């Protein structure tokens, strides 16, 4: 019965004025998940960059002596970067079965934040943080040209925040 029905399908389609190859011309549904879209790939790259910036701040704070006043300047900026990351991650929707984004397995606890004893954290200069903020702002502005409008606005806002951080760091 099933065989007979399948055999009859081209005939039915022909009767209806359709050719069998007109029915569906999209991607093969059995070929696996579709490739990730441009906005998803861009968002993954931006998330990875934001995670790197957060790691840099955590390392800088962990590497400062207890008597240093610098962490009081850096902590509010770090908190804002963590807000950036949360907002960016909330925008990331990956189809099930797609490859894991670089950020998904990325430890967000920065260097020195794992609790395990290790070498003393490296000293990160304020100039390096300032340069990283500027680079982040510039990178976001470059990327916002080709993404959908709401994502472009989020990138522009985060870039502006990064630019104010660079100024707060003396730049």
């Amino acid at each position: 019965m099933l065989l007979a029905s399948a055999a009859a399908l081209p005939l039915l389609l022909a009767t209806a004025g359709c050719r069998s190859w007109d029915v569906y011309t999209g991607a093969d549904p059995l070929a696996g998940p579709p490739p990730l879209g441009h906005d998803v790939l861009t968002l993954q790259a931006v998330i990875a960059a934001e995670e790197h910036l957060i790691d840099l701040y955590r390392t800088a704070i962990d590497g400062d002596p207890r008597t240093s006043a610098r962490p009081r300047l850096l902590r509010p900026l770090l908190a804002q970067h963590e807000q950036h990351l949360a907002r960016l991650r909330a925008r990331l929707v990956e189809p099930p079965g797609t490859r894991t984004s670089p950020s998904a397995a990325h430890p967000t606890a920065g260097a020195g934040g794992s609790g395990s004893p290790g070498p003393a954290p490296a000293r990160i200069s304020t100039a390096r943080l300032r340069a990283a903020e500027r680079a982040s702002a510039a990178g976001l502005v470059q990327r916002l040209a080709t993404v959908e409008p709401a994502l472009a606005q989020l990138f522009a806002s985060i870039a502006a925040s990064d630019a104010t951080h660079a100024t707060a760091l003396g730049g």
Partner: protein
Amino acid sequence: MMAITAVPALQAALAAEHAAIYGYGVAGAHLTGSSLTGAGQDWTGHQEARDTLAAMISGLGAAPVTAQAFYRLPFRVHDAATAMALAAYLEDGVTRAYLGLVAVSDQRLRHFGALAVQSAAQRAAFWRGSTQAFPGLAL
């Protein structure tokens, strides 16, 4: 979200610049020293931005919006602290307006808008004395 067209976004930015020019005039009357100098520089910058935007709008075949004769201030400005708070408020409005330009489909306008967002956010942070995580965005 659909991309918005260029002229309304440019007009919104121009309207925000008009308001900032008016507001800095009020704020400047209550500032002295380096704060007054800074406000003067920002006032000049907003006038230049106004002229740039007006030319861009005219170039697109539309009539640039004109300034209002009077703007209702968000609070009474009576000393240096309220004058600086007004300056931050004005810059927040300019930041939001330029963020609208970032949603247009023209890539050059997006870039122009994004850089203007950064400048306005920098000025807002200066007057407020602190940075924000999402300048111009409603949370």
